[in-house]
């Protein structure tokens, strides 16, 4: 957090990091200029508590959307609905314009959604290759694993995409011994290895050093450059603002507002965030400023000034 505050807002152009190699080849553009992902009137409650209420969200091609909100705003739940971990109580989900019913994690991954859950989704005692292929191993029709195949691919990813150069690290090394940055590289490469079109980064800067955070932000820029889309969740507005095209603010389960970063300065957004945190919505003045955006509250990425 404090690391980001001291940083420049837009990361400077720097040589490509090894991790970007994992982004090749570029994603095919979604057919007919369709949105990659559309959420319509999504609601979800757990045990009578409304966690999400009538949430709409669009994600275009080559777009990075930042998702901001306090603890309990519903960010994680929203993400878990997109990734198929939770089913919404109401509302619909469309991928590339096609409505998808009964989304599961398997289905979402098949539709090109990959999530970087940081180290929370790594199995510590298992070797690297089992972590890379977690949930979708390379296997024959009877479920027998092609272990040699997975080991070899992991080795290639390690040297080409993760930048692992230590001779002690092999595809059989258990994750427990990795550093924070190495774990993060593993989590990202795992998400990218499977040709994802939509990459969801859940609190990716948590626990990262300043240098690792910079590397991560450059990587998110690389997602856009490769024609893929990303949803970037963070509680740190400085990180989100520096890479997102549009910021969606969630508050107590509702979309409190959407703000193209091209039209709002960081200072204005900070004011809005404070407003949202205390009032649950933004002021008339902000509402007026937004009036020239589409009235549904969902901003078309293509309509934004460059």
């Amino acid at each position: 957090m404090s690391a980001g505050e001291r940083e420049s807002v837009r990361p400077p152009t720097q040589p490509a990091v090894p991790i970007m190699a994992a982004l090749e080849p570029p994603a095919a553009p979604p057919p007919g200029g369709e949105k990659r992902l559309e959420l319509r009137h999504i609601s979800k409650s757990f045990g009578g508590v409304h966690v999400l209420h009538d949430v709409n969200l669009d994600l275009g091609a080559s777009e990075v959307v930042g998702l901001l909100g306090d603890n309990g705003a519903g960010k994680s739940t929203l993400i878990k609905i997109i990734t198929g971990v939770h089913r919404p109580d109401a509302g619909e989900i469309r991928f590339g314009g096609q409505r998808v019913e009964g989304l599961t994690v398997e289905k979402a991954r098949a539709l090109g959604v990959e999530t970087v859950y940081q180290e929370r989704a790594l199995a510590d005692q298992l070797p690297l290759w089992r972590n890379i292929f977690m949930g979708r191993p390379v296997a024959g029709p009877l479920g027998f694993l092609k272990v040699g195949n997975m080991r070899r691919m992991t080795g290639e990813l390690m040297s080409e995409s993760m930048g692992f150069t230590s001779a002690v690290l092999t595809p059989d090394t258990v994750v427990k011994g990795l550093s924070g940055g190495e774990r993060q590289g593993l989590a990202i490469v795992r998400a990218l290895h499977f040709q994802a079109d939509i990459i969801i980064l859940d609190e990716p800067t948590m626990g990262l050093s300043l240098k690792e955070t910079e590397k991560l932000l450059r990587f998110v820029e690389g997602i856009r450059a490769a024609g893929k889309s990303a949803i970037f969740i963070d509680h740190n507005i400085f990180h989100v603002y520096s890479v997102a095209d549009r910021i969606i603010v969630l508050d107590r389960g509702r979309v409190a507002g959407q703000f193209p970063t091209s039209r709002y300065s960081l200072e204005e957004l900070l004011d809005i965030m404070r407003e949202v945190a205390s009032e649950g919505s933004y002021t008339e003045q902000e509402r007026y400023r937004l009036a020239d955006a589409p009235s549904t509250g969902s901003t078309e990425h293509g309509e934004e000034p460059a």
Partner: protein
Amino acid sequence: MTPAASTRPAPRPRGAITAFTTTWASQIGITVAFLALWLAFIVLAPSTFLSSRIYLAFAQTTPYFAIVALFLTMVIIAGDIDLSFPSEMALGMVGFTFVWQATGSVELGILAALLVGGLAGLFNGLIVTYIGIPALVATIGTQFLFRGLTLVLVNGKSYALVTASTAPSYDLLVGKLGGVVPMEFVWLLVLAVVAWVLLNRHRLGQNAYVIGDNGLAAQLMGIPIRRSRILLFVLVGVAAALAGAMNSLQIVNFYPTMGDGFLLPTLAAVFIGGTSVFGGRGSVYGTFLGAFMIGAIQAGIVAVGLTDYYTNLIYGAVILAAVAVHALLQRRFE
């Protein structure tokens, strides 16, 4: 090892050795412990432990709990446990006895036993995953339930199986291969390979490791958690029924309290082998050696010249020494 790795300077030997020991620390630990115990018995009772007779005896008696231990290992790796298998051994034999008496077929009886064992395992899996009772608690319950069901169904009676011993499948299960090697041991070897392949080269094993290591990760990465856990309980049920059938056919008698003494030796074999009670870690190899260590202790103690009273004392010492070695190796290398 990989094309990319070959372009880099060759790994320094020290690094390579460290990586090797880290990966295999647990297996090396159990192998050393196994050899140490074996050597101790050879030194202390050479006349017994340098003749083949004692090993043929082990080869017959150890599989009764080793077969269950192999599959119990997978349940424990997935973060669950099953304490009901001694009762599943007997309940399966109720299925055998009823079908065998009704049809006169030993083969159908064995199939019925395996089916009943599988259903008992399914019941365990369902109440653990769908009702959400921790496996430890649930299987303490079903251990009583299955034993109670067995006693009620056979009215507490035992059954002589002498007439079953002429069937060809009798020899297949508990005969002697080439007149020497007990078939129990042959089955143990076959099932050890099956368990190893399932655990290390199949989706089910991959799922078991991930579920036991990090349940949240398993959920987020879309692993079929319930299905996998249930299947593992079913495998233990089937393995227990098979072991129960072998045990009963070998002594040509089925008594409804059969299996009662197997609970702790089986668990000990799994934990001596380096399987973590917290899940996510364990091996078929370790359990296999662990089972033979447990299997050798009782006979070994008598052969060494100690009285039978020492059995539990030595069991305790060996179990604690083995798990202590595992704990220390883990701290040192990981």
